[in-house]
């Protein structure tokens, strides 16, 4: 296509503007996490970096515990989803049975249900059956986030494997579960790992569920970080540290799953 210098200039400047808009907040968060409370007011870019805020947040508060809570709940949710979701995805991909598409869409519809709709009744139920403010209670409700993703994405990965592979294995005398574990699972493994990590990120980011279904015992970082806004003591640097600590693992994970990201984000609808 034709490329006049003006066009290239316009194109590049728009991209640069967007890149600044998208990345500057992350950069700035990192910068001010090293600023002391006093420097927050009288310096911009030039200042004496200090680890004060990190010490305050990570050592003097329970932030590390909240971080761990997040790992337990999100990790637990993903593991449960893998255990029940991988077989479900395989079943939806390989077998032809009555009500198959309805079942698949039921699982997908969780994704679109308003979170508050689930939370309000579940709040009552959890209090009654003692799941309020427990790991199991949160891991269970997190299935609404992790399970639809894993089932739909993995269904696509299973469908990509040709039936001949399975038939050949059958001829070789493999039982169906041997085929599943020894042949299919290794083939979908890259996709499985990537979508599990993406599910982990979504669970990690979840806010509405832990805010309303857990109390003081279990507090994931997303909810805990909010306290820094709510409190009147203005420690901006500590807010920034909370944000850095919460966001960094996700950015790293995002780089790791780059190749599978489109497929995961679109629930398998777009095969990138």
């Amino acid at each position: 296509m034709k490329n006049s210098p003006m066009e290239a200039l316009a194109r590049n400047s728009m991209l640069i503007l967007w890149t600044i808009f998208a990345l500057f907040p992350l950069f700035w968060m990192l910068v001010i996490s090293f600023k002391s409370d006093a420097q927050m007011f009288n310096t911009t870019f030039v200042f004496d970096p200090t680890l004060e805020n990190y010490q305050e947040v990570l050592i003097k508060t329970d932030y590390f515990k909240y971080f761990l809570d997040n790992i337990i709940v999100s990790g637990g949710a993903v593991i449960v989803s893998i255990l029940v979701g991988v077989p479900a995805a395989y079943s939806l991909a390989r077998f032809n049975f009555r009500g198959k598409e309805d079942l698949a869409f039921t699982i997908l519809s969780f994704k679109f249900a308003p979170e508050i709709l689930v939370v309000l009744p579940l709040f009552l139920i959890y209090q009654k059956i003692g799941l309020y403010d427990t790991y199991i209670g949160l891991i269970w409700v997190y299935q609404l986030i992790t399970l639809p993703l894993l089932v739909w994405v993995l269904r696509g990965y299973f469908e990509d494997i040709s039936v001949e592979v399975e038939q050949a294995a059958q001829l070789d005398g493999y039982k169906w579960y041997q085929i599943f574990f020894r042949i299919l699972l290794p083939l979908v493994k890259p996709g499985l790992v990537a979508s599990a990590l993406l599910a982990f990120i979504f669970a990690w980011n979840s806010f509405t569920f832990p805010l309303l279904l857990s109390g003081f015992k279990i507090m994931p970082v997303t909810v805990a970080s909010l306290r820094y806004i709510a409190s009147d003591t203005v420690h901006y640097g500590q807010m920034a540290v909370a944000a850095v600590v919460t966001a960094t693992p996700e950015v790293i994970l995002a780089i790791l799953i780059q190749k599978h990201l489109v497929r995961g984000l679109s629930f398998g609808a777009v095969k990138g």
Partner: protein
Amino acid sequence: MAEKAGQYQKQPLSVRARPYLIIAPALLLTIGILYPFVTAIYYSLTNLSFRRPTMKFIGLENWISMFKDPTFWHAVWVTAKYAFVTTGSEMVLGLGIALLICKKDNFFSRILKVILVFPLMVAPVIATIIWQLMTNTSVGIIEKFLNLLGIYGFPWASSPSTALFTAAMIDVWVYTPFVIVLVVAGINSLPKSPFESAQIDGGSAWFTFKNLTLPMLKPFLYIALIFRLMASMQEYGIIFALTKGGPGDTLMNLSLTAYNKGFAFLKFGEAMPYILFLWIVIYIISKKLVSNWLIVQRKASGR
């Protein structure tokens, strides 16, 4: 297909039951979560409240009083505005940025494709904190930049006239990468030959875009639209973290109104119709959009 189904009929029960058995754990696990949907409908017909020890079945009273309540119509209006502004901006910006990135394939565009995804991975609540740090009028970096331009004390989330803009900006910051990622994947999947012939025929850039690029990207745009619209209609985290629905009732959408009624005012039965109404609307729109998507996808792949 029919032959295949017949085959399954002839197989023994143990084989026919296998797919159901394999999928059963996933379903059992989610039935526990489906149960609240049913109870939600029932609760909406009662006067359940945390202030009262007993609850009574009161029929459609909650629903009728909701439709008469101006706060409900205000919440519907806020929900619609928020969804329209955020989804609209994200679609336009996402498409634009993706087209700009893909115009050239060089080192920088490849780097951009990776790093521009970062905001999407940040929890929306954390994103709200980051933006609050930046827009803060006493220490915020944006305030300092605006001061250079002669603007002082831009109110951001604290004024009714700029609160929606602020919330929408955070939403756009987090979720535009989602649209970018999908559209970039769409552009990468485009066939080369129609574009080459359009170039030989001397079609203008706009003509090529309107008649070739856009129709072929439609399935991808539809996916982005479905996911973004459904999520922005029920956005809770960003608004809650930013202003809890304020200032006043400026940002009280249906999710926040239902939350407030249920948890702050403890009127559970009254809160349920608000969120059930939202769910019904989302369900109808998503069904319509998904069936449209299937048609568009069939057309785009030339069947």
